[in-house]
């Protein structure tokens, strides 16, 4: 099952506005604590890190713990003063990185 990120950023804003950014990724977030039907531990496989940048500058990043439930959802706010592009990255335990980006027009 592929991990598909979804993000939401307003298309436009006025300079100085505080905007809400939402980011969601479909991911089972297998904690490593669960056992399968035959009692074997299911290996850990989670999204362990998330980062958001704006025009290359870091906006927000965090480490994500195994205790976080499936399909982690983050929402945060930022004040914008110029047009540009938000980039989002999610890092999987297996090294894969999932990316999304969203542009905003600031007037």
């Amino acid at each position, binding site marked *: 099952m592929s991990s598909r990120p979804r993000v939401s950023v307003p298309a436009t804003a006025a300079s100085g506005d505080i905007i809400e950014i939402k980011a969601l990724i479909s991911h089972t977030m297998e904690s490593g604590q669960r056992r399968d039907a035959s009692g074997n531990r299911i290996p850990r496989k989670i999204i362990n890190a998330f980062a958001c940048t704006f025009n290359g500058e870091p906006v927000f990043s965090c480490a994500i713990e195994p205790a*976080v439930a499936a399909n982690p959802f*983050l929402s945060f706010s930022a004040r914008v003063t110029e047009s540009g592009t938000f980039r989002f990255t999610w890092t999987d335990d297996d090294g894969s990185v999932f990316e999304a980006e969203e542009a905003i027009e600031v007037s």
Partner: protein
Amino acid sequence: MVKVFITLAAAMLAGLPVPAGAEEKAGAAADVEAYVQRVSELAVDPAYGDYLSSPCTSCHGANAAGGIPAIQGQPAEAIIAALYEYKSEVRENAVMRSVASALSDEDVAALAAHFSQQ
């Protein structure tokens, strides 16, 4: 790009286990006989038994088998004993414990009379 407020919301709520039902009461089994004896002697109104039995038949059909037993035609004593054991949480079954907990002794007597005569 200065201010960042964060809420990390787990999109899926974790299921918190709730402790299992109350412990079985050890002395209960010994009391069954006395209870059956007492309740069997209560006077019953057949019309009340008819009415009280109506919710039972939503699950206990005359031909019920397997998951839910048929109770029609069972001896009154067996019905009284069973309801007592659900009430006193000797018998397991969440639905029946809930049903029995709402029944007075008069109710139990009326139901036993009703179903034993089906």
